[in-house]
């Protein structure tokens, strides 16, 4: 009955499990890392028990939402936000609001979490005609009560084609920002430090909801891209044709038009476990044109070889490109 090895003590296993769980939440979590995690889980049922327990708790914690410091100057804005978003479940919200040391916590309505792995692509179609498309390595939560028209983007890139309803705008919360559709097709990309909202059709408002920082808001018209960090928000104009190129992934394509080699490679790396590495800084700025299937990493390297005379070498999981 007694296994030859003494069971591991709980603390180190638990800490390792928590460290893995935390890593999975990073925007750059890759399929390669997922495989390492699976290997770690395979190694022992102790690992699985500890990891699945913490993971289950972490998922439950998705119920926590909309926490704002209850500063007096922000109190009004906070209340307005709650009135707007939580009216439908006022009864729940009343009991759910709990003040804790300067914070107020509200419950997030019941949500379904949709996620894609690296290289994944998923299209959600809703009864009102709204289409939500998830690109690679993406996680988005959508309120189960569709009349609420709320979504939260945890990581990745999502294309929204919203069936507009003037009485109930669709609101996407992305960290400290929210994007409100005003009849819209738009693309949200959540990076490590910055958020990009590209508007293809209609109008949309992007605003900060982080009560600590400066308040910023902007309203986008088609072809405009809002780039927001924790502290800044700027708007640039891009031709709609170029924006459509950025949406090539919806058809499984990467479309490059005067794109630098550096950007093209980082796009490929978003969709593939096997990574392309540029070994030579001097070639990063070369401009690339062309359309490639998202997984056609090898074909891309071949073209780099044929067009620019660059050398290509496979090494383990990586494809090296250099002069």
């Amino acid at each position, binding site marked *: *009955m*007694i*296994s030859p090895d*003494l*069971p*591991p003590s*709980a*603390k180190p*296993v*638990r800490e390792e499990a*928590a*460290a893995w*769980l*935390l890593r999975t*939440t*990073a*925007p750059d979590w890759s399929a390669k890392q997922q495989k390492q995690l699976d290997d770690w*889980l*395979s190694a022992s*049922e*102790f690992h*699985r*028990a*500890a990891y*699945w*327990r*913490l993971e*289950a*708790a*972490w998922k*439950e*914690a*998705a*119920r*926590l*939402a*909309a*926490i704002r410091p209850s500063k007096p100057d922000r109190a009004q804005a906070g209340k307005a936000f709650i009135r707007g978003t939580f009216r439908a479940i006022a009864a729940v919200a009343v*009991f*759910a609001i*709990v003040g*804790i*040391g*300067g*914070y107020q*916590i509200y*419950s997030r309505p*019941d949500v379904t979490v949709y996620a894609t792995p690296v290289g994944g692509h998923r299209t959600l179609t809703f009864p009102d005609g709204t289409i939500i498309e998830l690109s690679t390595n993406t996680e988005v939560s959508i309120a189960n009560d569709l009349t609420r028209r709320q979504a*939260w983007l*945890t*990581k990745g890139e999502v294309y929204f084609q919203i069936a507009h309803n003037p009485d109930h705008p669709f609101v996407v919360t*992305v*960290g*400290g920002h929210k994007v409100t559709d005003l009849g819209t097709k738009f693309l949200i990309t*959540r990076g*490590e*430090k910055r958020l990009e909202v590209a508007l293809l059709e209609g109008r949309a408002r992007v605003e900060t909801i*982080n009560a*600590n920082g400066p308040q910023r808001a902007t309203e986008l018209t088609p072809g405009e891209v809002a780039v927001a960090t*924790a502290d800044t928000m700027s708007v640039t104009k891009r031709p709609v044709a170029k924006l459509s190129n950025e949406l090539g992934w919806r058809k499984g394509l990467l479309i490059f038009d005067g794109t630098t080699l550096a950007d093209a490679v980082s796009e490929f790396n978003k969709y593939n476990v096997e990574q392309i590495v540029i070994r030579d800084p001097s070639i990063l700025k070369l401009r690339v044109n062309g359309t490639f299937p998202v997984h056609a990493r090898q074909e891309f390297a071949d073209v780099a070889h044929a067009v620019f005379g660059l050398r290509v070498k496979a090494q383990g999981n990586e494809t090296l490109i250099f002069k």
Partner: protein
Amino acid sequence: MNDEKPSWNNESVHPRAGDTAVSWAEAKAWFVRDVLPLEAMLMRFLQRNCRNTSDVEDVRQEVYAHVLRAAEKSLPERTKPFLFSTARNVLIDRLRRENVIPIDIAADLDLTVVPSEEPGPERAVFARETLRRLQLALNDLPPRCREALILKRVEGLSLQEISRRMGISEQAVSNYVQRGIFALADQLYGEQSAIGGEHDLT
């Protein structure tokens, strides 16, 4: 109950090898749905029967590992008796391993008493209860730890961004968030605030 004794002395299981009856996903779903809600009850049972209360978490982990390994071969029909008979076996094994008391005395321990049925919460109540417990967990955390956890879980910020906002190292953020995860799990499943006090990573 003894006939439901788990058989964890088999060869090691590689769940991805495809030779097991129960997939990882099924075993995980069973573990989260049927086992974790019994954790508070299990903790009370272990606290009553562990000589040293600081061992409780180690024992719990061992019990979970054993039930999981058995379930990956075949899901038990009745989770509760299976969980508690496993717990009993683990406790006896530990006593033997530690060589603390003769085996025959182990039989006298109050290990056969499995907690009586408690009424399960209704679904609607369950969601509310979950939220209440999440809030309790947050309440009990030190403010900085709570802040880091909220920025991570609710705002979805990266460790780097949180580190910048809070003016502490990424490692410190990571420690805070980890500690927060333990508190959430303990409060949700174990309801053991005494255990929560041990989660000092510093």
